[in-house]
């Protein structure tokens, strides 16, 4: 490889590195040649390791994700690989958009050249004057501590992961949704959630619907979260 002289610090994260590689290899972001990308990414990480650099866990996480993607691409059935690739593509496009906006913002920093003044140091009675209902305190307390009155809320990263990572049963739910739509009729979206037994099942069903939308297999139409939402099978695939 020609130039493995980058420092990890030059990249804002694994996504940044991936976009760099995509640009460098003139790959089409909508249809990435995944094997090229993966090889180069791994090579970068290796090079960094060789240079004894501290590699942030995010880079390693992405590496393992890519390796997994490459592995499933080798399987005779490509469905999961396609899904994972779509997911990665969407994320990359989104991050690319973020970078473009950031670039625009960074040209608009003229206002940083203006300065404001600190407030005059005038001594005055700052005692709070408003009167509130004492119930306001309950709301605020519940808001701070949470409904379950946990002492410590789980870190927000937990939620990133729920969505970032596929919950194992999504593919089973895709089958479930398609089976429900067998024959091409319409169904109320809500009914897909009937009989769900756990939170993760609900998540999986919802993700399955999104996945199916994404891959053009179902069509969602209607307004509001109520009755009008229906799921239609788009084509007779079976």
């Amino acid at each position: 490889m020609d130039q493995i002289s980058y420092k990890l610090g030059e990249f804002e994260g694994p996504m940044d590195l991936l976009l760099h590689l995509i640009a460098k290899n003139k790959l089409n972001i909508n249809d990435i040649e995944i094997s090229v990308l993966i090889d180069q990414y791994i090579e970068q990480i290796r090079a960094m390791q060789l240079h004894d650099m501290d590699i942030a866990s995010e880079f390693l996480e992405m590496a393992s994700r890519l390796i997994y993607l490459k592995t499933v691409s080798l399987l005779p059935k490509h469905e999961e690989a396609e899904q994972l690739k779509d997911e990665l593509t969407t994320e990359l496009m989104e991050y690319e958009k973020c970078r473009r906006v950031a670039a625009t913002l960074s040209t608009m920093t003229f206002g940083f050249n203006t300065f404001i003044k600190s407030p005059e140091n005038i001594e005055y009675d700052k005692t709070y004057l408003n009167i509130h209902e004492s119930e306001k305190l309950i709301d605020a307390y519940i808001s701070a501590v949470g409904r379950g009155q946990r002492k410590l809320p789980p870190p927000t990263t937990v939620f990133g992961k729920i969505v970032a990572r596929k919950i194992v049963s999504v593919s089973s739910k895709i089958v479930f949704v398609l089976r429900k739509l067998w024959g091409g009729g319409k169904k109320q979206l809500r009914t897909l959630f009937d009989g769900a037994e756990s939170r993760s099942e609900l998540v999986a069903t919802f993700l399955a619907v999104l996945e199916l939308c994404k891959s053009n297999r179902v069509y969602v139409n209607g307004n509001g979260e109520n009755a009008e939402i229906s799921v239609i099978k788009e084509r007779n695939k079976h």
Partner: protein
Amino acid sequence: MNIKEMVAACEAVLFASGEPVSLMRICEIFEVDEEAAEGVMNMLSDRLVNSDSGIKLVKLDKVYQLCTREEYVEYIRKTLDLRRKTPLSQAAFEVLAVIAYNQPVTKAYVEQVRGVDCSGVVSTLVEKGLLEEKGRLELPGRPLIYGTTDNFLRCFSLKSLDELPEVPADEDNADANGQIKMMDTALELANQLAEDIPIEED
């Protein structure tokens, strides 16, 4: 009190407060209606310009604030002993971009888009007064949600969030890609569902 005095008094109030002062506050202080207050503010702004003042009046959403004119930045930097030329890091611009266009959002959302942890950057931006807490999301763990501040508007010379530049067109995806359209429908749906979830604001 004649109008000239009122302009001067407003200037004194803005000067002393340092922080942005809302139009409503001005109305309360001087016991005038919004229109009159706005008129006074415009006069103050004009006078500052016409008298070649080093200070200008900026309007952000519905608040007003006095600040120095850009052209004198160097002298102020010299006085205050400030060295830094680039105001923010690349990471900071990215975090601001995600939050400005999607606010209010959780840190987890920003991390999701950028693929890296950004607690540090977010708290720095809160310290710099560019971001602030906007409440919590009604979700387990009740994550905090963040949005931009009036100071953000001032720093990026925006009058309001409506003036945020459009997301630059994406040539590659512009050609009607069915895939993306479908995704949009799914997004719309998710969005509609989301609308019914209360978000607490302060």
